[in-house]
């Protein structure tokens, strides 16, 4: 029986961002940009979508005179990610 894949996570960039954030405590915008290779505009849009869903927490602050946007995954995001991986396994016939 196939489980439904969460449409919010079933996109390359959003899934990439979530995979980064699940591996670290927190990461800033520049780190995400480097790891994904995506454009600033595209990342901003996807971060907003993930934040609106309550999957990530975005904090804007300062380091010296420069702004820094730090993102971290929320417990809701972690649960959604785990559920998504479980659903993927059912499609690929991987037994946990």
């Amino acid at each position, binding site marked *: 029986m196939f489980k439904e894949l969460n449409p919010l996570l079933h996109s390359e960039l959003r899934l990439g961002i979530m995979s980064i954030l699940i591996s670290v405590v927190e990461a800033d915008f*520049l780190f995400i940009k480097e*790891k*994904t290779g995506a454009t600033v505009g595209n990342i901003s849009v996807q971060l907003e979508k993930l934040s609106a869903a309550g999957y990530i927490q975005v904090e804007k602050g300062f380091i010296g005179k420069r702004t820094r946007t730090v993102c971290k995954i929320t417990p809701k995001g972690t649960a959604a990610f785990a559920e998504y991986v479980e659903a993927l396994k059912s499609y690929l016939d991987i037994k946990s």
Partner: protein
Amino acid sequence: MEDKILNEKESLELISKMIQNTQTKLESGKGKPFLIFGYIAFIVSIAVYVLLVTTNNQYANLLWWAIPLLGGLFMYKFGRSKDKYAKTYIDRMINTVWAVIGTVMILVSFFAFFNHSFPMVSLMLLLSGIASTLTGLIIKYVPIVICGIIGTLTCVLPFLFYGSEQVLIYTVAVFVMMVIPGHILNYKGRKANV
């Protein structure tokens, strides 16, 4: 990377690739806290030694407080990366170890303020040696573990020496367990990021 829909196999490959990619190449600048606190402790201990020898005034020991004060200030000013930044779970573990041991060191220093027979230098060497060793064990890097163990073992030496000589032991020990590991970590980080 774009906002395109992936098939199931591509999704799993992407997750695996991103997690792997995030776990590596995060070593650059890891030695910074070791170097900041190490060099400050090194310089302060030399200053305390010189003052004790030249003036024989025990108030010179008040200079020790410059280590947490200047260390905290320098960490705030230079310890945070202005470049891309990510905090791993290993970073958090190391920060916790140093925060707990640092707090104990400050509390012990307060206690020693009222009890002059307290083996202050030994205890400081023991505590910072333990923190260095744990850091090496957490990041699984043998040279740091060795420096930490050497530092920890030096805690017995102050019992064999008196007065200002104990300060010199601290100077050498702090160089071994803080400054050397700091440079090793930064070198390792630079090599990993080439």
